[in-house]
Every structure is written in C-alpha cells, then in structure tokens.
C-alpha cells in the first residue's frame, strides 16, 4: 500500500473521531435552540463532562462508566442554565457565558491535581466484521469504538424525532411560537426544561468522549473552544441534525489535518495550524449566514425569549 494511502486513512479516521466530539453537543444544542432556549454554556458543560469522564475512568479504568458519568454531569450542570433561563427568565446569553466560565473554573479547580495524567484504558476499537474490510471506508467508519457507531444511529434518530414525530412537532412549535404552542396545550416550561437538559447531556457526552476516546489525558481547558465550534455548527446546520454531522466531520477533518501536519514535521508553525480550524469555521459561518438569509431560513423565532404564563 502506498504511504499516502495510509496517511489518508489515518487522517480520515482521526477526522471521524474528532468530529464525534463535536457531533453530540451540536445535535443537543440544535434541540435546545429549537425549543427556544439558547445555551452558550456548551464549552463549560463539555469541560465538566470531559473532566468527569476522565476522573471516573482514571480511578475505575472503565471508560464506558466514565462516558456515562461525564454525560450525566453535563446534563446536571445544564439544569442551572435551565432554571435561570426558563423559570427565572434571566438573560440566556449571559447565563450561558456564566456557565462557560463556571465550567472552566470548576474543572481547573478540581482537575489541577490530575493535570497531564494519562488514562490507561480508553474506549476500545471494535472493528465490525465484514464492514471493516471495505477499502478505506471500512477502516475510517467501521474500525472505531462503540460510541462512534452509536453516533451514526443517533444522528438519524434525532433527525427522525425532530421532523417525523409528535415530540419533534412540539419542540418546533414551542421554539417558533410559544403562545400558540401554549394554546395548543403544550407545556412550554416542561418542553424547554427537557430539551435544555438533553442538550446538557449531549454536551457532557461530547466532552466525555474527548477524554475517554479521542484525547485520553487531562489538561486544563482541554476542550479548547470545541463547545463554541458546536454553537457555530448549529447555525451552519440550519438547525438540522443531518446537516450537523457534515459540519462536525468537516471540523474534525480540519482538526485532524492540523495534527497530521504537525506530526509529519511541516515547516508551517503549529500556532498557525492551530488557528486554521477556527478561521475556517468563521468563514463557513459567514457563508452559511448569507445562504440562510438568501433562502429565508430563519433562526427559531422564540430563540432567547423567555416565556411567562400570566395568571388569569
């Protein structure tokens, strides 16, 4: 096999792994925003998920347990945001920022002792018999860990829920016109709490996958802005889970390419390579926004607006 072939496979395999870190939070945020709640705390909740994922795996050597606990930790932290934004009708942008600062602070505070430690056991690579023998695709998509296989189904299921089920109709109704949805008998508060919590779980999952699968060590601020990339990809995906996966793999490819170039000892400084995914995300978001405007696809109309049921 020519070596360029091997490099390509390594690159794409890493791209899928890196993309998986982003795909969960992006889909979570799509649903949270669809319900009318903006959560800019993804970065913080991912850090919390990443930390708990690492912590649990570090002490139990069970990355699956780590992944689950990290996911739950992300979900629980989102309840702070839900309470402030839904019950107390606080400003969603500011509350989300507070969550991101909180996540960075709390994981620095408790994680400092563990900094630079590595995990002994990580999510195991389980090649799928048969499928993994397909050239290139088999290695890239079907010689991965179980969380990645889960993510393939997950994207489809979430797309199905959003567009083909009653729950999907409800969440979209709440996000497009809360008063009308309320008149239809949908409980706005419950819907928003549920999908905000759901978004938190998935942010936690993304973070936990980062430390139990993609980068099995602990560093201060290990998510390095991936939470913000996820927020950006929500716009890119036009609030559609099936487009989100393209965006996530696109970012994953950039991220992997950047690492690959560094590893092969290119003359381009690593700092400029590290800048590259953020710069390209910015350009993509600009293009996506312009397309959205031309095609009149708007943000969920209730996004960022609190709902208050007046007592009669």
């Amino acid at each position, binding site marked *: 096999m020519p070596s360029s072939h091997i490099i390509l496979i390594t690159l794409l395999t890493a791209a899928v792994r890196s993309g998986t870190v982003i795909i969960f939070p992006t889909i979570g945020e799509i649903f949270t925003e669809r319900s009318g709640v903006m959560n*800019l705390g993804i970065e913080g909740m991912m850090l919390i998920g990443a930390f708990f994922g690492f912590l649990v795996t570090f002490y139990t050597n069970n990355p699956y347990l780590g992944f689950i606990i990290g996911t739950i930790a992300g979900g629980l932290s989102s309840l*702070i945001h839900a309470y*402030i934004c839904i019950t*107390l009708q606080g*400003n969603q942008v500011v509350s989300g920022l507070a969550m991101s600062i*909180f996540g960075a602070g*709390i994981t620095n*505070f408790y994680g400092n002792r563990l900094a630079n430690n590595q995990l002994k056991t990580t999510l195991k690579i389980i090649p799928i018999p048969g499928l993994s023998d397909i050239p290139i695709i088999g290695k890239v998509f079907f010689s991965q860990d179980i969380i990645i296989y889960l993510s393939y189904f997950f994207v489809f299921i979430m797309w199905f829920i959003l567009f083909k089920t009653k729950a999907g109709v409800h969440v979209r109704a709440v996000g497009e016109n809360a008063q009308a949805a309320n008149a239809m008998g949908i409980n706005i508060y419950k819907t928003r709490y549920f999908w905000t919590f759901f978004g938190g779980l998935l942010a936690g999952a993304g973070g936990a996958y980062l430390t139990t699968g993609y980068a099995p060590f602990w560093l201060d601020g290990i998510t390095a802005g991936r939470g913000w990339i996820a927020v950006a990809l929500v716009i890119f995906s036009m609030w559609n889970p099936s487009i989100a996966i393209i965006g996530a793999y696109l970012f994953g490819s950039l991220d992997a390419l950047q690492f690959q170039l560094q590893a092969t000892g290119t003359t381009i400084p690593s700092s400029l390579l590290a800048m590259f995914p*953020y710069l390209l995300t910015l350009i993509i978001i*600009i293009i996506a926004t312009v397309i959205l405007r031309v095609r009149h696809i708007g943000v969920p109309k209730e996004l960022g607006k609190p709902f208050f049921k007046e007592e009669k």
Partner: protein
Amino acid sequence: MIKIEKREEITTKLRIIVPIISVFAGLIIGAVAILFAKVNPLIVYKSIILGAFGSRYAITETLVFTTPLILLSVGLIMAYKMFFWNIGAFGQFILGAIFSSYFAIYGSPDLPRFFMISIMMFASLAGGALWALIPAFLKAYWDVNEVISTLLLNYIAFNFLRYLMYGPWRDPTSHGFPLSKTFPINAQLPRIIPNSRVNLGLIFGIVAAIIVWFIIKKTKFGYRISVIGGNPIAARYAGINVSRDIIIGMLISGALAGLAGMVQVSGVLHLLQIEINPYYGYTAIIIAWLSNLNPIAAILVSFLFGAMISGGYLIQLTLQVPFGIISVIQSSILFVLIGSVFLLRYKVSFVKRRS
C-alpha cells in the same frame, strides 16, 4: 400559595441591593466548592483578602489588576448597551498588545518617550478597533451572529500571538521562552506609584469610564444606542442608521480593549508574552453586568474583581489552591445576578390560600 405580580417600577434600592447580594451568594457558592476540595474556605478567603489588601505591595498589585479590567469592562458596556454581544474583548486586548508592541520592539529607543507612548497608544486603539470592526461589519451587513464571530476571533488572535512569540518576535536571548525583548524605557508607560507596577493606565481607565458614561448619558449617539439595545427593529423604523451606530459603538468598544492590552504590556510587563492573561476578557463581561452597565460603577466593580484576582494568585502560591476557584466565584456571582432579574421584574409574595 405563591403569588407573582409584575412590578410597576424597579427602585434604585433594589438595583443596588441585588448586585451586593449576588456577590455574597457567589462567595458562599465558592465556599461550598472549596469545602468539597476538603479545604477550609475561611482560610482561603482570609488569604484572598490578605493577598488583595494585606500590604502596600498587595494593594498596589490589586490596582494593577484593576486597570485593564476597567478599560475592558467599560468598552464592553458600550457594546452591551446596544445589545451587541461582544465576547471578543480577549482577542481585541491581544491585538492592542501586539500592535503597540510592534513599535516598542522595532521602533527607535531614541525617540522621545511621550512621542513613542503616543504612537503605541494609537496603535493599540487601532488594533483593538480593527479586531472589533470585523464582527461589527459582519453583523451590520450580513447579520452574522456576533457571539460566534467574536469568540472565534479570540482563538485566532491568541494563536496569532503564539505564532509571533514562538517565531519572529521571540527574543533570541530568551533561552527559548516565548517572550519578546524587554521594551526600552521610552516604550514603558510611566508608573504613578513608586516601587510598584501601578501605571498611567489606571488614569486612562478612569478617564475612559467618565467619557463613556458621558457618551451614553449625554449624547445623541448614546441615546440612539440605548434605543437600538431596546429594540433594533423599532430603532430602524425611527430612522436610526443601526448599522452605522453598531460599527461606531464597536469601534469604541474594541479600541478600549486594545488600549487595555497596551497598558498591560507597556505599563506592567514591559514585554510581550503569551501569558498576557486570558482571564481578563471574560472577567470583564461579568463586571459589565454586575455594574448594571454603568461605566462609573464598573470602576468600583473592577477594583473588587482586581482584588479577587490579586488574592487568587496568592492562594495559588501559598495554599496551592488552584486559581480556578476565582472563576467559580465570579461565574456564580453572575448566575445569581442574572437569576435575580426575575425578582426585579416581578414581585413574589406569599399569600394564604383561600379555601
């Protein structure tokens, strides 16, 4: 049962009490977090206070940390008044530092100090403004979400700084450390308290706060941006050129963040390095909201937060308590503050259930 009514008006008393309660609540949440780490929070808080005010040196260091926070938060207030979500103060701060450092590193050390400092100030204002104008134009003309654009620009700015520090601007005699050469005397912002790092930047901050207060309260532009902040669509119908005002507002906002960057490198560090403090840009967001978007109040709140940072470094040094606890306290303050807005807007009272 609990009865909730809309408040007719928000009293000044409430406006002052709520932030104060938020600070205390944040400190309590921080104490709980410290307890979980099996450390006595009273010892930690005592050390923070000592680190902030315990000696002449401590007080001057608190003022050093206060200085960039004033400039950054006052700049952010300008943006937040128009509800432009500038999260990019960190990146604008870095650009200001880079632009001004260029002249300090490559300029002639023989230029008169006043002249050199003026050039550096102008460069930092331009650098910060440039970095703020990108998201402002993107927002004004293409409606690109500014939260995302300003944030991504932070990462781009930071990696650009890393590039300079590991590459062309690194001092060959720094033994591989990512530092520039030390600025010559003419590129050092004068210090205003002897034997301390307190510099002229503190005065810049206070003057900037007064100017921004004046702009917001007393000028037509200030009135227009508060209309834009209230309802941009209504503002457009009222004949306000929203795009132009957003661009002008962000120009000021970014310029002040850039100036903060210059103050940090020219007044405090006397060189450019990677660690020019990533916390400031985000801390300033909290300060802006805690001061209720009032530039004068921001001076006091910046002092409080400067004290926390100063104390935070001491506990890290003496008690090995990680600095992150300061972010936990600050974000908790913000959570409580934002949550309390409900209490400002609605009156919650307990009434007996009628049976």
